[in-house]
């Protein structure tokens, strides 16, 4: 019978804490940048200019139809050949941002499309410019409509950070692998690792829920 011993795992708590922090850091930055870039992609995707639409569609399809791990490898190992040299952390954040923006763009687009035409017409009839109509009239209700999908995309993305351990970005999974190498307590290490991810995603859910209630909530029928 295997003797469970979590002590060596807990002794390495500093490593885990640093890893967890790095995971939160990578995720939070990529979410923020991914949201901004995703909204830009949405705007391009819905633009009246065909060239912009094609670029956005091409980009979104490219990202959504290639594995995340391949994207990470491409940015970290491939791009230096073209002169773009990033450290593991930077490569991780860049890939996460590029990846999540494509998914966010599709989610945000469905939000924008859910807004009734009358809302846009009301803004136009008041003499507002198209950018103003989207910024002040469409944006909040559109995000509100897709906020749950947006949140699950964010959580999925946070969990995806575990893949950047493969380029030695020193996040949570990387820390766990280090502890495993030193202690050979694989079961305990990965059990605890799973638990930490679970806690992190709960915390993210709470935080995102709070943001949703603060900025994207208003009475509806």
């Amino acid at each position, binding site marked *: 019978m295997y003797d469970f011993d979590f002590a060596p795992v807990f002794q390495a708590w500093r490593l885990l804490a640093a890893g967890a922090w790095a995971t939160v850091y990578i995720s939070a930055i990529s979410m923020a940048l991914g949201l901004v870039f995703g909204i830009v992609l949405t705007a391009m995707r819905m633009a009246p200019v065909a060239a912009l639409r094609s670029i956005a569609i091409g980009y979104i399809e490219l990202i959504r139809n290639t594995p995340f791990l391949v994207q990470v490898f491409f940015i970290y190992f491939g791009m230096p050949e073209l002169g773009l040299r990033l450290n593991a952390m930077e490569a991780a954040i860049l890939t996460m941002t590029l990846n999540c923006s494509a998914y966010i763009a599709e989610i945000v687009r469905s939000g924008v499309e859910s807004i*009734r035409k*009358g*809302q846009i*017409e*009301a*803004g*136009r*009839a*008041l*003499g*507002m*410019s198209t950018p*103003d109509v989207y910024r*002040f*009239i469409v944006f*909040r*209700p559109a995000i*509100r409509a897709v906020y749950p999908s947006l949140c699950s995309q964010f959580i999925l993305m946070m969990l995806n950070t575990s893949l950047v351990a493969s380029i030695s970005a020193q996040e949570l999974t990387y820390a766990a692998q280090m502890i495993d190498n030193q202690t050979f307590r694989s079961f305990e290490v990965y059990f605890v690792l799973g638990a930490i991810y679970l806690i992190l995603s709960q915390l993210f859910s709470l935080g995102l829920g709070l943001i949703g209630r603060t900025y994207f909530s*208003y*009475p*509806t*029928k």
Partner: protein
Amino acid sequence: MTTQNNTTIRMSAVNKWFGKMHVLRDIDLTVNKGEHLVLCGPSGSGKSTLIRCINALEEIQGGTIEVNGNQLGKKGANADHIRRDVGMVFQQFNLFPHLTVLQNCMLAPRRIHRISEAEARDKAMHFLEQVHIAEHGHKYPAQLSGGQQQRVAIARALCMGPQVMLFDEPTSALDPEMVKEVLDTMIGLADQGITMICVTHEMGFARAVAHRVIFMDRGEIIETAPPTEFFGTPRHDRTRAFLSQILNH
């Protein structure tokens, strides 16, 4: 510039198609300052489309439209300019659900006229009081009844200081008991002398405020007459048929 200062809207030979459907046929219409027009006709006759052309929510394929001396260009050029002089009230109210009543009224004046928040608030309160809904200024649209929402929509349009108000079936989406409060608001507005074009089937309203009633059918203006004449001695068969349908039930 207009030659007659009294003319607010001039539509000449306006034609519009939705695909192959010819929805407006050679519309000629001149609306004078302070005039109140009621547009009626069977559904699909083009009356909503007609007023939506005036503020360029719909593009026209032929003819010209001039508002306050500004001609609406091809592909909606000059549209923003014209829209600032033309307020519109929609059948479905179209209030912005994420903004309070007050914010609904303040948004466009702040963005377009670049006035201060305090000034926008004062102006909004002024018009909200005029439509008797100021006490609900802090509420969101979903917390109001349909009639209240429509009155807010009227105030929101007035905040931009329009020369002309367009009403696109403003009472059609309302429960019957709320129709009166909206019509009363509109009658109040008419009494102040604002130019008004109203698409409606409320013939009582037409009798009370309209200077001219226009009957449309299949994209054409069939008959234009003052209300007494229009209801008393309609000239065209189609007008008579329409009136008998809506008045005898």
